[in-house]
């Protein structure tokens, strides 16, 4: 893996890796990938085992206010947001001309 690979992965993950850190990450990945490449030694395959437990999905019920949360949850969520206008989250322009 080289620095252009690291940058490509960073683009996919919406992260910027500063130039001064790129070679460090490159070296780290060489070692990590060598380690995990050991899995190719294993040729045996199994049918993936069923889970050992059975999930119980909840009833699909519409709530005006979900009783699992306090009544002011809407306000609290809005307060967490960086910029709000009339109860709407404000974001940067997505589409440009």
């Amino acid at each position: 893996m080289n620095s252009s690979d690291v940058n490509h992965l960073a683009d996919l993950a919406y992260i910027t890796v500063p130039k001064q850190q790129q070679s460090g990450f490159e070296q780290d990945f060489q070692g990590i990938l060598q380690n995990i490449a050991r899995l190719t030694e294993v040729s045996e395959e199994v049918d993936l085992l069923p889970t050992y437990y059975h999930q119980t999905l909840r009833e699909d019920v519409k709530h005006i206010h979900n009783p699992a949360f306090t009544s002011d949850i809407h306000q609290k969520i809005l307060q967490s947001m960086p910029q709000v206008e009339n109860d709407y989250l404000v974001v940067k322009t997505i589409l440009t001309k």
Partner: protein
Amino acid sequence: MTTPLTITTLHDELVSGSTTATQVVDSILAAIETKNTELNAYTEVFTEDIKKQAKEIDIKIKTGATLGILEGIPMSIKDAIMIDNKKCTSSSLILEPYTAVYDATVIKRLKAAGVILVGKTNLDEFAMGSSTESSAFEPTKNPVDLERVPGGSSGGSAASVAGGMAVASLGSDTGGSIRQPAAFTGIVGLKPTYGRVSRFGLIAMASSLDQIGPLSNTTLDAAHILETIEGHDELDATSVHLTPEQALDIPRIQTADVSKMTVGLPKEYFIDGIAPEIRESIDQVIQTYKGLGVTFKQISLPYSEYAIPTYYILMPAEVSSNLARFDGIRYGLSQRDSATNLLDVYKKSREKGFGDETTRRILLGTYVLSSGYYGSYYSKAKQIQALIKRDFEQAFQDVDAILTPTTPHTAFKIGEKANDPISMYLEDIFTVATNIAGIPGISIPAPTQGLPIGFQLMSTHFDENTILTLGHAYEQTTK
């Protein structure tokens, strides 16, 4: 060193009136005042809340009302578990501004049980690490030796209990993050079966591996906490309805005869490279159990040698997905003011907010899931996960439990492995297989002439009763 407080002892003292909740809280706050500046176990302490709660509990005791086993017990909470209206940072800058908007289910259950929630504890950023050194808010130190790490990622939780600043704690464990710090600090740490405890309100790292569990001074204390937090939660679709056989049976844990039990010793876990003091300690543990009539049998878990590489594919893959939500848009740190467009907000917020280890794991996860590599890495790792699970299932047909060291060596010095990620990843060598297989595991303090050492017990899915019984029997024999 003073005898650590336990839940059962403290409960008896509160009921008998030989102490009050206010005295207990004052004592905990005094310990925090003396030690926390150095140890950095807590990132936030709820001083006024807990003083008020202690007074309310003392009033209740005076009325003669029955006190629940956890009522009035001071517990710390790993800062990846949400408490309503309290900051929840996962020790990351990207969540430094964030205040939780609801209680995690485990917190609701502890509050209902009357637990005194003392504060939030430090962790490796987003629970990624084995030393608590990658926290954005400085490392935590080991109370037993201030030059050493307490382990991680639940290092703050472990240090708070081992340092006498909490009677117990809740941590989370994805690859060993409860058990390894418990071993490094000389306390008990339990990772339950996957699905036993709700993950709702736990900031997710790897959703198919994460479990919340207790850190405590005794096995019985861990059992009392687990009994309170376990069970199905409709807000977590991966949590299960426990059958009567699977539910904890504390009277049985306290009295069961272990002489009829068989414990497996997997040869793959007793390898060259284990520190001599660990080997010697585990030998003593085995002799103690033999004295109780436990039978030991050598077993093999052949795919264990692939547990670390399997984990370091599956876990980062899930991390890269789970941490996509931290984008500077809806909550947390945001670089929107210096960004020119939406994608710039994401990149700048994430660059500023994430530390090196978090960035490394996100990139690794992105790589193993990317086109052209998914088949070689992720699909292969899922196959080997199935083989590791099969190893355990076959072993548990012949043995009731499995015993191993928790760690290959004792707590290392702060800074010793900080720049060597592979060496740090190998810290999990004895713990990750339990997460991969989804089985429960507990670390219990073992004999030592120096730094703390832990031994690990594992059992089949939902059989926490067996490992808690064995753990309790060991403690009763050696106290």
